[in-house]
């Protein structure tokens, strides 16, 4: 997808979400859904960037999100760092951990990277609950309570101030989305795709797999950690429940619905998935079953997600144009002596 189409889809989607508080600002339920759509759309976008574009099957996205949340919570609660500073420090800490996790992954292929990164997520919960976690201020099984809200320009941004918090999240979402588009359309993005398609050929053309794979780990971990941090100052409490399989699964569903490697399809996937997830809450235990069924249907009918539909139309137009070009070329060849 070209940059213009990406920006158009993002502008329409986030623009639409951006005006909804004018009508739904009084409803805390809808405002919470809108806010979570923004947060998850960025976290899922980062996962799509590393998995769908760079071809690295990292399953550590939820872990990076939680590390960002814990880092900012510990910094602000235990060390009294002001939240607007601590969220960026949390992003940096997560990026450093992302690079450390990425290093052994450079030597591994697809499914083994998934195993290593998922094992990292599994190991994170006992670490945070155990004595080591407590020593750094994780609060153990109890977690961290009374995480202060973000306070800037004399205003609090938290779950008690839903509309301001939504717009703060929207601003950061737009900045991070712009960063993702710039990366995808720069030579970094081309290098990611080349390494995904043929690492050997890319290396033989001068692309450093070491540099670009670590770069994608660093960038996606930073943004994911930043949004994890943003979230914790919104809800005010934190525990290892965030590391649940449900969070992981729902995030994965967003990417499948949007289309893997079809950015910004994942943003549309986040809108659909978060909305459905909330609307289906009254279904209780059947909620995830229905979501799973939805994934099966989408994988079978739209393997490239909702973006596949848009792409199908554009490919159809391109094929028609190309056929006409070839026809014209053949006619020119036939008529030439």
């Amino acid at each position, binding site marked *: 997808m070209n940059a213009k189409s990406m920006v158009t889809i993002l502008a329409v989607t986030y623009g639409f979400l951006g005006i909804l508080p004018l009508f739904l600002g009084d409803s805390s339920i809808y405002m919470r859904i809108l806010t979570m759509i923004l947060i998850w759309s960025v976290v899922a976008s980062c996962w799509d960037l590393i998995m769908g574009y760079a071809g690295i099957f990292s399953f550590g996205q939820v872990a990076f999100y939680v590390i960002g949340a814990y880092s900012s919570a510990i910094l602000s609660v235990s060390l009294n760092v002001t939240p607007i500073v601590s969220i960026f420090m949390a992003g940096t800490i997560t990026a450093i951990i992302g690079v450390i996790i990425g290093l052994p992954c450079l030597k591994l292929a697809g499914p083994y990277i998934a195993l290593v990164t998922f094992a990292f997520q599994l190991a994170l919960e006992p670490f945070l609950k155990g004595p080591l976690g407590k020593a750094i201020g994780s609060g153990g099984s109890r977690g961290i309570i009374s995480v202060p809200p973000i306070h800037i320009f004399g205003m609090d941004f938290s779950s008690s101030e839903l509309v301001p918090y939504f717009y703060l999240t929207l601003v950061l979402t737009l900045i991070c989305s712009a960063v993702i588009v710039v990366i995808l359309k720069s030579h970094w993005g081309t290098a990611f795709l*080349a390494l995904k398609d043929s690492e050997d050929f*890319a290396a*033989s053309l001068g692309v450093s797999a070491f540099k670009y794979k670590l770069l994608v780990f660093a960038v996606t971990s930073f943004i994911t950690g930043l949004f994890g941090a943003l979230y914790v100052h919104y809800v005010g409490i934190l525990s290892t429940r965030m590391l649940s399989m449900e969070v992981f699964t729902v995030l994965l569903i967003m990417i499948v619905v949007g289309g893997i490697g079809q950015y910004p399809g994942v943003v549309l996937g986040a809108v659909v998935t978060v909305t459905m997830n909330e609307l289906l809450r009254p279904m209780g235990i059947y909620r995830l079953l229905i979501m799973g069924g939805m994934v099966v249907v989408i994988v079978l009918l739209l393997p490239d997600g909702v973006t596949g539909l848009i792409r199908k139309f554009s490919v159809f137009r391109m094929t028609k144009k190309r056929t006409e070009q070839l026809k014209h070329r053949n006619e020119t060849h036939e008529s030439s002596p």
Partner: protein
Amino acid sequence: MLKAINITKKFGALAAVDDLSFEVEEGQVFGIAGPNGAGKSTLYNLITGFYKYEGKIEFDGQNITGLPTHKIARLGISRTFQIPQIFESLTVEESVNLGGRFGSSGKYDSGYCDEMISFASLEQERSDKTDLLNLLGKKRLMIAAAMATKPKILMVDEPMAGLNALEIKQMTNLIKKINQDLNITVIIIEHFMKVLTELANPILVIENGSEICTGTPEEITSNPEVIACYLGDTHDA
């Protein structure tokens, strides 16, 4: 220009390349032949830094042993692959530009990349996704992307494999043009002896990772050991 000194690569007990030494001089089309499994492609992988090995390889007087592949590419050694490697997510133009941007030691030169697209006769397909190309197109693309790195040596691995007679002629002409018109040293692995003897001089023949002989096409095709282990009695070179 390129000097391999006693290089050895073992996979467990098997020596895929065994104490091999040879030298490629500037401006040559240096041929490499040998039966399947002789170690030809492994040799390419050693030169281009895909595998670690014993021994030493020098390029332009510089020891390149142990350098990673992308750094060797930037020094001026570029290659294609026996099984066509393409970037399915990219267009022809993006693939060639990738070589120009990352593999060239100088500043990125989009004009030169455009020239390489035309040089490899891919002008019509420049905006196409690479998986739409036929086999010849994919081989041309690998060459164009490799050429975009402005190499001093281009290493092509079985460029004629799977091509028909007309396509072989076109590919042969392309390799001749690279060597003669662009003055680039070429190393070529090829099973099709008629093409290899037309293009290359000298030719190195290897078997089980070791050199059988190196010589002119005439010397190679009349060497009894080469005939016995590789060409057979009825070869048509």
